[in-house]
């Protein structure tokens, strides 16, 4: 039992059970002797498996038996993460309980367009600098005429604030910066525009 207890003591170091070593060395042999299609990126085994100096496998000892089950692999498949962001499922009504709705579609002839992020949300964020003394609301992914877009939204935000609002446009990066906290107002405005 002390031998088995050591197995649990350290996940990172190789386990000491000679019987489980035997299973793996036989697995490794099987992999080395045939070329297999790579399902995930190449299987990386722990460094110490290749270290013959600490090899405790006694070749004369009988290897432990095991059962192979392909049916139970479905529980493993559930645990493999997807590498792509999934498309949001279709809901009966929008906005969803969390407040999300897909883009309605902007009217034709609009000189600008604001793309959604890869996670299907609006590209609006808050940037804080100098310990919070400088707060900017950033709108990204503005395609088309960024100046018209920036000025139009600036008009709306100045109405909301009731005072002048600072604005900076980075044409190359397709971003517009507004001085202040206007995230919710900007998102509402974008949804009204159909983005």
């Amino acid at each position: 039992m002390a031998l088995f207890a050591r197995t649990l003591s350290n996940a990172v170091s190789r386990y000491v059970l000679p019987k489980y070593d035997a299973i793996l060395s036989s697995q490794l042999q099987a992999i080395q002797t045939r070329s297999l299609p790579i399902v995930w990126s190449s299987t990386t085994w722990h460094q110490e498996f290749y270290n013959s100096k600490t090899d405790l496998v006694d070749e004369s000892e009988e290897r432990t038996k095991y059962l192979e089950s392909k049916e139970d692999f479905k529980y493993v498949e559930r645990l493999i993460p997807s590498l792509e962001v999934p498309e949001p499922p279709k809901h009966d009504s929008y906005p969803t309980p969390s407040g999300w709705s897909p883009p309605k579609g902007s009217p034709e002839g609009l000189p600008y367009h604001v793309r959604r992020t890869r996670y299907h949300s609006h590209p609006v964020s808050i940037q804080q600098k100098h310990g919070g003394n400088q707060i900017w609301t950033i709108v990204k992914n503005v395609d088309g005429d960024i100046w018209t877009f920036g000025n139009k939204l600036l008009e709306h935000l100045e109405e909301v604030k009731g005072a002048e609002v600072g604005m900076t446009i980075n044409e190359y990066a397709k971003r517009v910066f507004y001085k202040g906290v206007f995230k919710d107002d900007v998102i509402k405005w974008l949804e009204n525009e159909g983005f």
Partner: protein
Amino acid sequence: MGSMGNRKALEMVRSMPRVSFVNIRDNPGSKKQKKIRGQGGSRGGESGRGRSGKSKRDTRPPIGYEGGTTPFYLRIPMFPFYKNFATRRQYLPVSLEKLQHLIDMGRIDPEEPIDVTSFVHAGAVRINVFDRVYGIHLTDEGADKFVAPVNLEVQWTSELSIAAVERSGGTISLGYYDPQSLDILSHPLQFFRRGQPIPKRLLPPKDLVDMYTDPSKRGYLSDPNQIKEDRLLLAQKFGYELPDLTKGSRRALHRLRKDPRQIFFGLQPGWIINLTDRAVLKPVDAELQEFYRA
């Protein structure tokens, strides 16, 4: 950037002559004069250190010295604000609002049981057990908007979150994962690649036993009958009608619970995963089976 003063400044600059090396200079205070020894004009001689004294000879007392009286930083008695700070357990927060959002966006499947792996794969948290993270804390922000019926397992929560989940027709339980098991649970594919047998999940340490055996917190080691009673009490306390989980299509989902020694659903400790052959290897040896079932 684009404020009123800067706009005016830009207008002024437009009317000024071209900027060149002739008409610009450094801002005052941006370049500090270096100390010069010997005959260095105005900055030489004493090199800015003044006449004889402690300031010239670098024998000033330490910072905070108050001329002999006990300094402020020694008068105030020490209080162990940060004692054992590095050993304290952390639970990463995920709000009910975030969970609802992830379900709405299809990044978490409400038809399957939700545990730490689901949150990590959805991108809600990044768990590093070496930061003494012991799991997920379900916060109650967005409790009003939460409507998804889920089978949820987290490591810390509040009464309001439990009420919000149960009102929506879901179940919630608190499950303890020791750091090794939590690491495996958060990064399952990396663990399977190691080719090691799935370890047994350890039982909670002494100071956490009370929490995980408490039915009012829905601990995984508590009596299910007491949990049933507590669900009714909570519904009465918060004033909602408790949905019947024994009826409906989600009946089977809500009954799913992990064994206290189990890390993954459907996979038992002692099994090895063979990713290349898409198979699961199970030990046949009686001693091993007895050990892993203990």
